[in-house]
């Protein structure tokens, strides 16, 4: 039976590669512990929320109204008015020394302007050297001012003797899927993709280059095995081992960080399998083009680790990058996986919602598998 022979040949390669994998303790450790390490690292370190950030105020108005306004700012969970200065330079000194990130100047005519029904303009000085904090501070201040203004308008309308609502539109904001807006949930689900795209190719990039370096690939060429059988046999142990490994990491992450798990584990399994397979494919592709183990390792890092961090949609949103870079991002299978992972865990989406992405991953795998086999068949590696 021709089919049976081919199957046997795949099995032989499979067993040999499995032994290789199990005999390499460093790779095993990295496969198991690096993702967990990264999970903790990103989970605990990436936190953009501001809590009780120190603020300095220079109140030139010194009226009841300005005191009340300062109290409003102090009462939020974001800011804590810790310094009151008597001149502008003191504010700048505090900013320069990095003690505060935000300084507020209240103009002398603050209460007068408000009483006259005009808009009073305060000035805020924001330390923008840490841009992310600065952007958050700006938007917090905006919402504080909006709420404060709305209250003044309400009083103003009442005072003018009207009964209509000064807040004609009330915005009911709901956040779906992650009610408490926990950053954890968002980061951890992003890390799942980063660890697969970041480490799987590095771990598998050596599979073929190792045989090239030791010369044993010539024996493979001389044997009756076809390129497809060879690649299939070599990839299979990695795919099986790494899929189980990452499934374990996802379950562990969900359990440890107490994330919701609204979808089915079967759906997660299928998409993880597809994602891992594609990444194993990338690793094998690198293996067929690299000249030695060192360059294979480095190429894997260049090709996948940085794109994983930048383009997996894991840490920053991708929607606002230029078109060209979006296309570059589609070269890597990560983009849809992050979406899918979040959708299944947090939204409880089922597989049909992401059928297209699933098919894309399958197509991605088939293409990269064929390229690897074609590179082997050329024997020019």
């Amino acid at each position, binding site marked *: 039976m021709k089919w049976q022979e081919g199957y046997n040949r795949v099995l032989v390669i499979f067993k040999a590669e499995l032994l290789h994998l199990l005999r390499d303790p460093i790779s095993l450790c990295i496969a198991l512990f690096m993702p967990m390490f990264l999970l903790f*690292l990103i989970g605990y370190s990436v936190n953009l929320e501001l809590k009780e950030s120190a603020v300095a105020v220079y109140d030139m108005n010194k009226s009841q109204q300005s005191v009340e306004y300062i109290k409003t700012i102090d009462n939020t969970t974001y800011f804590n008015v810790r310094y009151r200065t008597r001149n502008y330079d003191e504010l700048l000194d505090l900013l320069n020394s990095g003690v505060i990130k935000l300084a507020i100047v209240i103009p002398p005519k603050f209460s007068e302007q408000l009483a006259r029904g005009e808009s009073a303009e305060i000035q805020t000085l924001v330390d923008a050297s840490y841009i992310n904090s600065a952007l958050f501070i700006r938007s917090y201040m905006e919402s504080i001012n909006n709420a404060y203004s709305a209250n003044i308008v309400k009083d103003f309308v009442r005072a003018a003797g009207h009964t209509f609502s000064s*807040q004609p539109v009330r915005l009911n*904001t709901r956040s779906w899927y992650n009610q408490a807006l926990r950053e954890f949930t968002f980061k951890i689900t992003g890390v799942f993709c980063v660890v697969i795209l970041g480490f799987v190719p590095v771990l598998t990039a*050596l599979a073929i280059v190792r045989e090239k370096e030791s010369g044993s690939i010539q024996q493979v060429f001389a044997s009756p095995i076809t390129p497809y059988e060879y690649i299939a046999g070599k990839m299979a142990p990695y795919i099986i081992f790494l899929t189980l490994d990452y499934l374990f990491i996802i379950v562990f992450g969900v359990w440890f960080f107490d994330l919701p798990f609204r979808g089915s584990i079967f759906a997660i399994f299928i998409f993880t399998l597809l994602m891992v397979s594609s990444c194993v494919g990338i690793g094998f592709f690198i293996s067929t083009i690299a000249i030695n183990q060192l360059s294979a390792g480095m190429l894997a890092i260049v090709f996948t680790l*940085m794109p994983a961090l930048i383009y997996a949609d894991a840490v920053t949103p991708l929607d606002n990058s230029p078109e060209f870079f979006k296309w570059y991002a589609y070269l890597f299978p990560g983009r849809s996986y992050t979406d899918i992972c979040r959708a299944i865990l947090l939204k409880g989406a089922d597989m049909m919602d992401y059928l297209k992405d699933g098919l894309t991953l399958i197509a991605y795998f088939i293409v990269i598998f064929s390229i690897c086999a074609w590179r082997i068949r050329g024997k020019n590696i």
Partner: protein
Amino acid sequence: MSINFNRVAGLIKKEFIQFFRDKVVVGLIFYHFVVCIVLCAYSFLFLSENIKLVVYDMCRTEQSRELIDRFQHTEAFALYGHAANMGEIRHLLNSGRARAALIIPAEFSRELAGGRQADVQFIADASDANQAGQSAGYASKIVAAFNRDVTLVRLNREGTPVASLPGVSDAVRPIYNQGLSEVNFVVISHILVAGVIGGLMLASTAIVREKERGTIDQLLVTPTRSIELLLAKMLAPLMICLIATVFSFLIVAWFHVELKGSIFVFFIFMALFLTSMIGIGALIGCLCNNSLQAILLSFVVWFPAVFLCGVATPVENMLPFMRAIAAVFPTTPFMVATNAIFAKGQGFFALWREALRLILTGGILLSLGAWVTWRQWKQ
């Protein structure tokens, strides 16, 4: 113990030749010091723009259209489309094709006309908590402006002629980074990221390579002293990384990142910082037996060194034990120093604390690395 500088120069030359011969390594350094910075400057941005918004307008009047227009005419939102029912909204959000939804009730304009309050619903997809927070902020800002305008018109119509409404507005004056541009920060911080990779990889592989090929024995039987060899092994990566940093500065110029301090001070700090990274690299090189292990171990160091130093999150927002870990890495003082040099224009002496920390960590790491290598070579 005298050091023959001619021999050291010769060895450095050898390291350079070996570096340029390996095209992959040259490519890697170029990628991290140039390409990656460009990629990140375009894409590694936290601020969300053009968030895809789906609208379900049950009212379909002039007023509801005006509110939708206001959402549409900001950079924050891009209209994805109109939904005909809640099921459609649920589906679009579930599949991630839209990230936010605006639902205007049928009685919207009736309530407005009656001077009552109309409830408008805004749904943010919070599986991306960061973006959801931003989009909710944008939405409330748009609605607040809408409310003010409607109230103003109403006051005038109902017999209170006013030109403006009282309120507090905010003239934000960003200090140090005038345009509040994210790009500046990303470019600066990714020079650091590149420096970490360059220092670790070049130093560790330079040492491991000789071990792998067995050429270390040949070198050790020559009159070269091991201290000279070590010096060359550490100076060469330092020089290569500093040259690569010059290329990074082309990117700095390309993105018009303002450098307020002196470029000279920056390079002093860069050299101090690279020295300590090279010290860690040398340690890794000593511990590993082959290049791949060295690369993988470099990455074990790379992650905490980069993630904890303030590139992604300000250090003061972290949990105390994370801050303690962050303090150990030389990246943390370097991040503070580069930021101060680029954005605040501070000089060397204003940053003496950071310089001291870098010199200390660098000195300890470097001598540790040197000592371990030297012991290994003596055997």
